[in-house]
């Protein structure tokens, strides 16, 4: 029983324990789940500090046979790839609990318990090293999210929940089939063994088999990512989900897809991955631009952020399939960045919803006057999402694009268009929501004509009036609890943007290992592929 097992088990125990709390004690349930999630987070911090960042390979391993026949291991461990994913999940769960503190009023117990179950599943997914165990966790995650959307969602929640469930199931069934096929070949579900057998050539897959297996895994992950054109479940799910659901969905669950690509698709099927990288990257780039363009015309804030996720995750897929150290590092880093910044976007959109009970951009305006700190926090998040240097997304996006450019400059050129477009949609939304005057307030005759712009118009602006003037009604500034949700996220944005060295070395070490396994792949020499040795070829 090491620390990682604790991190996995605490939420599970917390979930079970929460079920036994009488439902009338709502406040206690909230405090209890918050406590459990914080405890998990603290324990996971231990993982980060105890982690040897320069070593590739798993650490904190627990491995024993869970089921004899068929041989299924309880094999968990973390490496540089999963370490930060686990931390992302444990970091965001307390925040998800905090933002639901008052907004969830019915079935309080189930809601908060399900969040713990979700955390359990997410931590499990990111630390499982047994294919079957991975699949089990993968499906466990689905259940609480289905209920979170289906029970506490908005008007079209059932439609959204079912769509979400069916899409994901469609993919994961194929993945299960592939896993079982691998089991028939390898005789075990243990990922390390399977991988070893694949790489040493003891399992000789025909070319067709490898391609099909790759596609089966890829499809499951691509739906989760979601990659264009499999993304249409995402906007619906986000719009209908409660805030905490959106946060967890966008920030952590989507990463299951990209994580899976890096963890399973690349090392197991290197040849197929490379052969198929062309159209995958094309789809990713289409997704980047398409998501951004569609985001630009959304009237609904959550939909906008959802489509922006499609765009941002396109970057991640691009980075993964650039097969360069730089691109892959960037992709993994971008997963974390996107988790933090999009999480924060949803958190703040949730605050806005709590104040006005609307998600439509048109219903807002002039928020900056009434709630300056809220606006500032949202602005920082907006710029993080746009990819402003010194904030987190920039590091990831830059590395991804650099990696893509090393592989194929045209890719980078097209993908960079997404960076321009992201500024368009985010700033446009920001302007309409926070600037100007509150919806319903008459716009004074603004003479646009020749040079009548008046520096000295009586601008009764800004904070000076705080939330107490006429347009401040129903739009209070951040409360203490809301500060507690937003501030950690914003601080993480700055930290990750300014000092990526805290995070990147562990990722780099693992990525380097994945890339070498790809290059050493047994059949790699049979297929003629452009060199993928990263920038080194040019750099020396």
């Amino acid at each position, binding site marked *: 029983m090491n620390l990682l097992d604790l991190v996995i088990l605490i939420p599970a125990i917390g979930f079970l324990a929460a079920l036994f709390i009488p439902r009338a004690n709502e406040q206690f349930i909230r405090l209890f789940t918050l406590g459990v999630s914080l405890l998990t987070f603290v324990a996971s911090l231990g993982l980060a500090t105890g982690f040897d960042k320069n070593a590739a390979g798993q650490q904190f391993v627990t491995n024993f046979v869970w089921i004899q026949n068929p041989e299924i291991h309880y094999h968990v461990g973390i490496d540089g790839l999963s370490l930060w994913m686990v931390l992302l999940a444990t970091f965001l769960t307390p925040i998800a609990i905090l933002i639901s503190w008052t907004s969830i009023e019915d079935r309080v117990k189930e809601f908060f318990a399900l969040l713990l179950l979700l955390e359990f599943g997410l931590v499990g997914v990111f630390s499982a090293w047994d294919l079957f165990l991975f699949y089990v966790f993968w499906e466990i995650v689905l259940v609480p999210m289905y209920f979170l959307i289906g029970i506490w969602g908005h008007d079209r929640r059932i439609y959204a929940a079912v*769509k979400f469930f069916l*899409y994901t199931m469609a993919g994961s069934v194929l993945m299960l089939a592939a896993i079982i096929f691998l089991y028939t070949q390898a005789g075990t579900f243990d990922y390390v063994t399977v991988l070893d057998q694949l790489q040493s050539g003891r399992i000789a897959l025909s070319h067709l088999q490898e391609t099909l297996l790759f596609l089966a895994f890829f499809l499951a992950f691509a739906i989760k990512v979601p990659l264009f054109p499999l993304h*249409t479940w995402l906007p619906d799910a986000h719009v209908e989900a409660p805030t905490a659901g959106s946060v967890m969905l966008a920030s952590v669950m989507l990463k299951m897809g990209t994580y899976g690509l890096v963890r399973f698709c690349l090392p197991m099927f290197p040849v197929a991955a490379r052969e198929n990288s062309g159209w995958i990257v094309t789809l990713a780039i289409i997704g980047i631009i398409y998501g951004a*363009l*569609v985001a*630009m*015309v*959304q009237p609904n804030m959550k939909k906008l952020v959802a489509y922006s996720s499609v765009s941002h995750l396109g970057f991640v897929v691009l980075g993964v399939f650039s097969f360069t*150290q*730089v691109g892959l*590092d960037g992709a993994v880093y971008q997963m974390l960045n996107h988790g933090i910044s999009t999480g924060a976007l949803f958190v703040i959109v949730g605050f806005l919803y709590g104040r006005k009970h609307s998600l439509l951009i048109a219903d807002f305006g002039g928020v*900056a*006057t009434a709630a300056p700190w809220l606006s500032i926090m949202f602005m920082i998040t907006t*710029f993080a999402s746009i990819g*402003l*240097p*010194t904030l987190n997304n920039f590091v990831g996006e*830059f*590395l991804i*694009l*650099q990696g893509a*450019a*090393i592989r194929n400059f045209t890719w980078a050129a097209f993908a*960079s268009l997404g*960076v*321009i477009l992201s*500024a368009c949609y985010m*700033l*446009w939304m920001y*302007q309409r929501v*926070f*600037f*100007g005057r509150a919806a319903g307030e008459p*716009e004074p005759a*603004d003479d*646009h004509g020749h*040079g*009548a*712009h*008046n*520096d*000295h*118009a009586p*601008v*009764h*602006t*800004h*904070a*000076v009036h705080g939330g107490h003037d006429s347009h401040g009604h129903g739009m209070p500034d951040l409360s203490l609890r809301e500060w507690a949700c937003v501030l950690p996220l914003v601080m993480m944005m700055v930290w990750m943007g300014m*000092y*990526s*060295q805290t995070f*990147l070395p562990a990722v*780099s070490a693992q990525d*380097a290992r994945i890339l070498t396994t790809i290059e050493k792949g047994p059949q790699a020499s049979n297929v003629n592929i452009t060199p993928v040795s*990263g*920038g*080194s070829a*040019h*750099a020396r």
Partner: protein
Amino acid sequence: MFKLWLIPLLPFLGFLINGIFGRKLPKLVINAVAIGSVVASFLWVALVVGPSTDWGEHKVQAHYFTWIQSGNFNVGWDFAVDKLTMIMLMIVTGIGSLIHIYATSYMDHEGGYYRFFAYLNLFMFFMLNLVLAANYLILFVGWEGVGLCSYLLIGFYFHKKSATNAGNKAFIVNRVGDFGFALAMFLVFINFGTLNFNGVFAAAPGKPVETLTAIALLMLVGAAGKSAQIPLYVWLPDAMEGPTPVSALIHAATMVTAGVYMCSRSSVIFLHAPAAMQVVALIGLATAVFAATIGITQYDIKKVFAYSTVSQLGYMFLGVGVGAFSAGIWHLMTHAFFKALLFLGAGSVIHACHGEQDMRQMGGLRKYAPWTCLVLACGSLAIAGFPGTSGFFSKDAILTAAYAHAPWMFWVGVVTAGMTAFYVWRAFWMTFWGDYRGHGKPHESSWVMLAPLMVLAVLSLAGGFLFNVPEMLKDMFPEHGEVPEEHMLMAISVAAGLIGIALSWYMYVVNTELSGKIANALGGVYRLVNDKYRVDEAYDAAIVEPIIHGSSAVLWKTIDQGVIDGAVNGIGARAQNVGGLLRRIQSGNIRSYATWVLAGSVVVIILMGIAGGVR
């Protein structure tokens, strides 16, 4: 040793203090923090870093921490100071200090006072970061950061839709430029394996010309965005929505010149890519002429100066493009002096006229605001290239270099110089001569505002021979050939300036009817120019509208909701049709469910029986 980090960090601390606590602080403290931090970093530059460095080949380098490290991609937070940087540092901190002082009075009655100074300090932080950077990525940090501050400050009056629109436009157009810059960086890293200036410039001469040309052209895209060159200049005139000190500091003196700085910094790359140089020169020249023609027709005093800025930036690019990097930097510096002066003076005028910006509502102000009139006259003389003023020296250096490169460029430049003199003096006459046409009684500005103006006026007049930039930078950039007819050329350009001034005097003081007649005579052409060639409208129609409508109607409504969701739902519907029977099964009737369970188990039993049972 030199604690270079102190230079940007001081304004940053000012930003933090004013930004976080500013709402509760008294104005005096805000002023002290805002001005103090900038002045302190100016003093640090001027008194510590400047004098104590041996400016031979010497270069101060500092590495603070590794920012991004992945594989062989390694970028540190590195600063470096050489002479070019030193000049930029002096300009930025010096003019920045003056404008901060000016702004305390100018913004006195505005809401969000603390916010304004917090943003200004943040801008200083990023701008200093930009000029101190020792690699492209840190330069890019400053590059994007100043864009952010520009966005924030243009949209400072965020109640006004036009202001926030202008802010968005500035940021997004700049993003288009940054797109080019980012691609340039990718190419640099691919080809050089590093983004450090030292490494890149050392290796650049050995690289193929095509590569360097591609890099240089992409950098030019970035520079065109930031420095408002064709075709990305459209944001700068709109940026005048911001408070006037912002226009002076960011949109005239410092930020918009970052493109010129970047090109000069990358001079090694540009010098080895002659084709790219030619493009730079052409774009610069085209922008200079184009913006000057628009400037002639504008009535908003800030718009006039905005187009003038675009035009002057074109000059700087012309200088860079013809290989006269030091002349470009020289003009950058003198332009910073006189354009900051012009904008701040314009701010003073606007103040005097109670917020009026339309020159047709001004006139005769020399009686009411004599000091403002005097300093603006200095600035206008300088920009017109009046002999002895700062503008004269730098413009002449650029034009001479242009003549050496291609004589026709010189002639176009001279015409532009004439136009520049014309429209600046046109603004001057319209504002200060004639009778007051506006409402209320104009008044002179406070001494807090006038003092920085006077300093700038002195610099505009004397800056040219006080700071001989080409002399300072002569070992950084290659010499360009001497032109035999140098004095002749000088005379021509001076004459062009004087003709411009005289013509404007005739048209706006002596015979005020004439301009209207000419405008009428030109008819459609005049209206086209007055409407800024309708470039904004063309961009809207050609780019913005198709994208938005296409995204909404085609991508979202048709592809997303129609094709993809349609396909998904279609599969569902097809399944329903095929499985009409299956739907019947879902009758909700328990007994029929039981029947199906039974049927299923019968099938299983039969199959197992046929297979021989389970053993």
